[in-house]
């Protein structure tokens, strides 16, 4: 009976602590609704529904009629069609470089129409539903032969597609969760006050935190990279150093966000709730599990400027497609910009707190 009373009092105390600082609890309660909204808005017809899949038809100058007939056959809500001039040698480059899921090159073979389809096989949407729909539409008429050409030699499968995204979300989660505890814990213990009473500048303290968490996040990224390679045989086509550098740049904005949450939060619970409130929706709309091409245009526009999307895309570019530094400089630029913005935000919040 005595023990039951103690247990009961402990439970009451825990709830009182949570209720008296309700912000954390509110975040956790609101989170499932947010995810529901994110899914409902971003993937209204399911994850792999095709709508406006970017497709390019190549016209070599002699086959205008063919191009028109292919375009007519495939014209539907499923494809967003672009016609470009050139020959088949640039088709692969075009698909890879301009992010088309499929490239179509119609040719005449005697009286038959032969269509080469270059598939971005790093994208499961392109490999699956988009290719099937397109092939069915083209084969609808007799005499059209379709030959598939993979853009990449390796067969990555869905795990291969997920892999770079998993590295990125692993880094995001570790950065957000570890760093969100970073300042709040010291604030609660009082050690932050002692540190701030030291003659060292604030930025030095913050940079130290960034460095500590970057190392942690990068190690976690390297471990996932190694696990994917060893356990699932996922090849790393590009430079491993570039992947590690990308991991570092992926961690930067999230550490900044988490530090901001850590300064704003009134308890460890609240800070972590804020961090996860940001992380979980990001995980679903940044193209980690489902291609952003599945999303309606307005969500896609937002998704494409999110830091995690830049990171996931760049990691895919290096790990799967084997691209180099100059091809992913956009991601370094965007992630650096986010990192800088959040760093400034952290300093501003810190200064405001001091007032």
């Amino acid at each position, binding site marked *: 009976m005595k023990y039951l009373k103690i247990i009961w009092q402990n439970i009451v105390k825990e709830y009182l602590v949570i209720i008296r600082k309700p912000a954390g609890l509110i975040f956790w309660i609101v989170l499932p609704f947010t995810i529901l909204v994110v899914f409902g808005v971003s993937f209204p017809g399911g994850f792999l529904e095709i709508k406006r899949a970017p497709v390019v038809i190549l016209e070599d100058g002699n086959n205008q009629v063919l191009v028109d007939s292919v375009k007519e056959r495939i014209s539907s809500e499923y494809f967003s069609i672009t016609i470009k001039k050139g020959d088949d040698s640039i088709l692969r480059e075009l698909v890879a470089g301009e992010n088309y899921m499929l490239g179509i090159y119609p040719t005449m073979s005697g009286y038959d129409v032969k269509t080469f389809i270059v598939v971005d096989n790093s994208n499961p949407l392109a490999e699956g539903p988009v290719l099937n729909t397109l092939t069915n539409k083209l084969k609808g008429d007799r005499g059209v032969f379709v030959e598939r050409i993979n853009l990449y030699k390796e067969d990555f499968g869905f795990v291969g597609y997920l892999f770079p995204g998993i590295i990125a979300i692993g880094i995001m989660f570790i950065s957000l969760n570890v760093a969100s505890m970073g300042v709040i814990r010291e604030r609660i*213990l*009082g050690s932050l006050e002692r540190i701030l009473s030291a003659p060292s500048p604030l930025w030095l303290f913050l940079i130290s935190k960034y460095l500590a968490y970057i190392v942690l996040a990068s190690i976690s990224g390297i471990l996932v990279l190694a696990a994917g390679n060893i356990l699932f045989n996922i090849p790393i086509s590009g430079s491993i150093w570039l992947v590690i550098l990308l991991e570092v740049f992926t961690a930067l904005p999230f550490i900044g966000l988490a530090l901001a949450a850590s300064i704003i939060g009134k308890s460890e619970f609240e800070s972590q709730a804020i961090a996860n409130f940001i992380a979980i929706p990001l995980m679903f709309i940044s193209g980690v599990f489902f291609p952003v091409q599945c999303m309606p245009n307005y969500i896609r526009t937002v998704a494409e400027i999110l830091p995690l999307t830049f990171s996931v895309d760049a990691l895919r570019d290096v790990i799967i497609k084997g691209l180099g530094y100059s091809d992913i400089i956009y991601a370094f630029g965007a992630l650096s910009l986010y990192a800088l913005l959040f760093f400034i935000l952290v300093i501003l919040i810190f200064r405001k707190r001091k007032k």
Partner: protein
Amino acid sequence: MEIIKTKNLSKRYNGNLAVDSLNLSIEKNRIVGLVGPNGSGKTTAMRMICGLLRQTNGEVEINGLNLSRNLSKIQEMLGYLPQQNALFPDLTVYENLYYFGAVFGVCDRKLLNRKINDLLEKLGLKDQKKQRIEKLSGGFQRRTAVACSLLHNPEIIILDEPTIGLDPAIRVEFWNLFKGLKSQGKTILISTHYMEEADECDEVIILNRGKLAGFGGPDELRKKVFGNVYDLSQTKSKNSFENVYLNLTK
């Protein structure tokens, strides 16, 4: 020589004045007590003097330097002990000391180790050097916390209730340490709720609702309260500093 000076120092929180036009002038090489009821603005005043909190109005001068304009220079001169121990519970005594020593700019490893060993000896922490803070008693934790504030050999030591919750023997040890620091030329500003400790100070600042209710030596304040009839031969309880305090903070 004036080492801490505040001019009309005020701090407003959500419309309420936590510290109201505080004018202080603290001489070098003194132990100055800061007393007042809970919420009287002691910690707020101390935090403003340390540069941890920005004042709403007024100015702070440390050693003739304006605090707002010379923050890092002044912070080198200050050693601050917050109300909490402000230590890392997962680290050992030595690790905490080493960390805070480094943060406060004692970068030379040999020098820092010498200072740490010296403080461990002085504060009776030698046997606890390798123990984690979370495993230590409150008294040892507080000793470590005080040691962390002294590592960089500050000229001015600001201690926010350093002896709260400690047993009388440790409090006596602490006061011996503070007096020893004073004999080395340090200035100590110490907040306390123990009136017998305030009585040990060279000067006492009494705060009440953010305002200065009294400032002077303990005997000077006694005279102020009890008038010239103040008589050293009277019973201790009647002339006690506690009565001075209660009178001034009514």
